[in-house]
């Protein structure tokens, strides 16, 4: 039983289960197909955003520019379709390339200058947001093709939205990356013990650039998913990503110092946040309560992680 609770995702998963059961007893419409569709769409987008932050947390840094990457890609994605008539698939590839390049550039500056990622991505946030506003003049692009709109708003069957597909691909991909690919292990190694990684011959610069490029790629996917869901190229896409992009991984057991993350835990973290936000609508609760509950959840999650660390340390001492 204790072994089971050593898994990062078990705690958040139980919280999700209790929340779902509790809310659906109080408010049966919570389980209506439409509501589930809305909930899953939100979860799908937020999961990809959280993964974009997760890969940076894994290396022991933070990416404040995540939302700015996503916003810039979102408007570029629509702009090339609207202004140049580029087909959606090509626009998608352009968007992925922009996000990856922006991430790689930011990673390159961080790795080469040795300046903290916090500062560099803070500057990046301003720069990319500035480019975004320069292109859009703060006006949305409306030329989103019907196929893209459909992808963001239709269900595959029942209450399962199409948006779930990119989320599943990204989640499985990131799980595979962290657990099976060399670069994923290197990202965790650098986050876990940078000196050890360096002395073992791991190329730290390249690893940091990879992590940020992957983060940019995920931000791009999330940005374009939001375009599909909102049906317009909003310049404000990405502005509100920051808090939940950290909250979900931390609730899911990620260590902010780096070296330890859980994709499954992050998923349940995203679900918890989505359920809380939904409950707000269903029970017409004041928004401030949601903020307090979210804050308390983060503290609770960090507390659990800390408790486990202390327990592990004690076990080691005892030996």
């Amino acid at each position, binding site marked *: 039983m204790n072994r089971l609770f050593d898994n990062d995702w078990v705690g958040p998963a139980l919280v999700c289960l209790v929340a779902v059961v509790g809310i659906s007893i109080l408010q049966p419409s919570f389980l209506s197909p439409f509501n589930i569709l809305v909930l899953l769409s939100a979860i799908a987008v937020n999961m990809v955003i959280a993964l974009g932050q997760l890969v940076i947390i894994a290396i022991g840094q933070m990416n404040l520019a995540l939302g700015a990457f996503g916003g810039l890609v979102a408007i570029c994605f629509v702009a090339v379709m609207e202004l140049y008539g580029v087909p959606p698939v090509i626009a998608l590839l352009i968007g992925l390339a922009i996000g990856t390049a922006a991430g790689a550039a930011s990673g390159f500056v961080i790795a080469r200058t040795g300046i903290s990622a916090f500062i560099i991505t803070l500057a990046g946030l301003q720069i990319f947001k500035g480019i975004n506003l320069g292109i859009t003049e703060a006006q949305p692009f409306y030329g989103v093709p019907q196929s893209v709109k459909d992808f963001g708003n239709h269900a595959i069957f029942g209450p399962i939205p199409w948006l779930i597909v990119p989320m599943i691909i990204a989640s499985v991909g990131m799980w595979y990356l962290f657990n099976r690919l060399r670069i994923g292990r290197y990202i965790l190694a650098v986050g*876990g013990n940078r000196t*050890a990684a360096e002395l*073992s011959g791991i190329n730290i610069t390249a690893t940091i650039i990879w992590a940020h490029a992957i983060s940019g790629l995920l931000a791009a996917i999330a940005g374009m998913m939001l375009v599909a869901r909102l049906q317009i190229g909003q310049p404000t896409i990405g502005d509100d990503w920051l808090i939940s992009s950290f909250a979900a991984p931390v609730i899911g057991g990620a260590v902010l110092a780096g070296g330890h993350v859980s994709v499954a835990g992050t998923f349940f973290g995203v679900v918890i946040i989505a359920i809380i936000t939904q409950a707000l609508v269903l029970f017409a609760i004041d928004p401030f309560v949601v903020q307090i509950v979210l804050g308390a959840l983060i503290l609770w999650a960090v507390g659990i992680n800390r408790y486990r660390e202390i327990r592990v340390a004690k076990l080691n001492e005892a030996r």
Partner: protein
Amino acid sequence: MTALKVSNVSKSFPGVKALDAVSMTLTGGSVHALLGENGAGKSTLIKIMTGIHAADQGEITMEGRPVRFANPRQAAAGGLGVVHQERNLVTRFSVAENIMLDRLGANSLSRVDYKALAAEASRWLKQLDLDIDPMTPVSRLSVAQMQLVEIGKALSLQSRVLLLDEPTASLTPSEAQVLFRILRKLRDDGVAIGFVSHKLEEVFDICDTVTVLRDGKNACDSQPLKTLNRDDVVKMMIGRAERISRRAPRPQPAAPPFFELRDYSSAAGHENVSLSVRPGEILGLYGLVGAGRSELAKAVLGLARQTGGEIRVGGKPVKIGSVAEALDLGVGYVSEDRKGEGLILLHSVLDNAGITVWKSLANALGFLRDGTVAQKVGPVLRKLEVKTPSLDQTIGNLSGGNQQKVSVAKWIAAGVKLLIIDEPSVGIDIKTKAYLHDLIHELAEAGTAVLLITSDLTEMVDVADRVAVMDDYRIEGLVENDRNYERVSTAIMALIHGREAA
């Protein structure tokens, strides 16, 4: 066959010449000891060989070809494997992954083949007689097992030259014997092994040749160990035996101890430590790196839990839970890590010197004026002859010696009755060092109790009145200091090595 040759390598750091024309030759199929006291330059030399530091002068050749590694990665690729003194493992990763960390796949997107990793790693674990599942996370291992994993990692690179920096520091004698068996086997396979250790028994047990460094210079260069005995080596390590202190021994003050530990044990690992310092006395605390001296200072200051025994200050038993409580009792600590723990480098001289007196100087409303602080610390800084353009100067811009004076000044300004000084002369020049020694004496003459922690035997014999010898978090004994370097250093070494030999 010469595997690695270091010729006339020099390296200066600001204020110190760490290495001065040092040479050393490692030969394939032989184990070479690199010896020297703490601060003699061994670590710097290893860091230069492995590309962490660049040499200012001199040349390194491997198998005849000049090499200049830009980083440890290149060194490893060039066949030079190192086991560093500090543990360098990713503790959340498995043993196998740690051993094979640089070879998890051909390129970034390669799939990690855990089965193959485990198979390869278990080969090396078997060699080390380490019966653990290669998929075990390193965090579950004991310290000794982690050490062996690091050695396995270096071995697995099939290095032609293998440097081991104090590899046995955390091993039990039987574990060390296992390691030596492996080293002998590697030696017979033609590997050149460089071996740094403080334990002379080990050196004579396993090494064939020896290089001794003293004050950054060769005391001997790659001499066969057969031609030397223990005393020869010790003499080379600690310098001319007849070095005599210029200070006369001081009579012991008669006052009752100001500070006393009775069978003190801490969560940091100290066991039954007893020592006492009288007002006006300088008690030295000597030990090798890792003996637990700085840790004792920090534990006493409340940074580690007290698990047994008693701390008495001014004759009364006390509990110290934090540095602030220690300061209230009149106990101050000058850290060995001046830059990391002692000073706030970006702040002014005034702020650094005044930090200990802010609390007592603040007025009823909690306001504190720079003028008030300057009045208090100014005279102390002047007395210590701190060379600074003004009190507003950023302390990071001062020389190491002047920084050290400020870290002492802040405690003098606070009027502490016991000052614990940890490695006061690390990284400062000889003149300031002599000045600091005078200062410590003046403090003692003025009635301050001083606990001096240093790994520099000369300094110890010069400054301390009595020397408590610590090894493995225990006090091994007490040596009266009559300033006879030969006698005192021999007595200290006997206390440290006596336990090992037993």
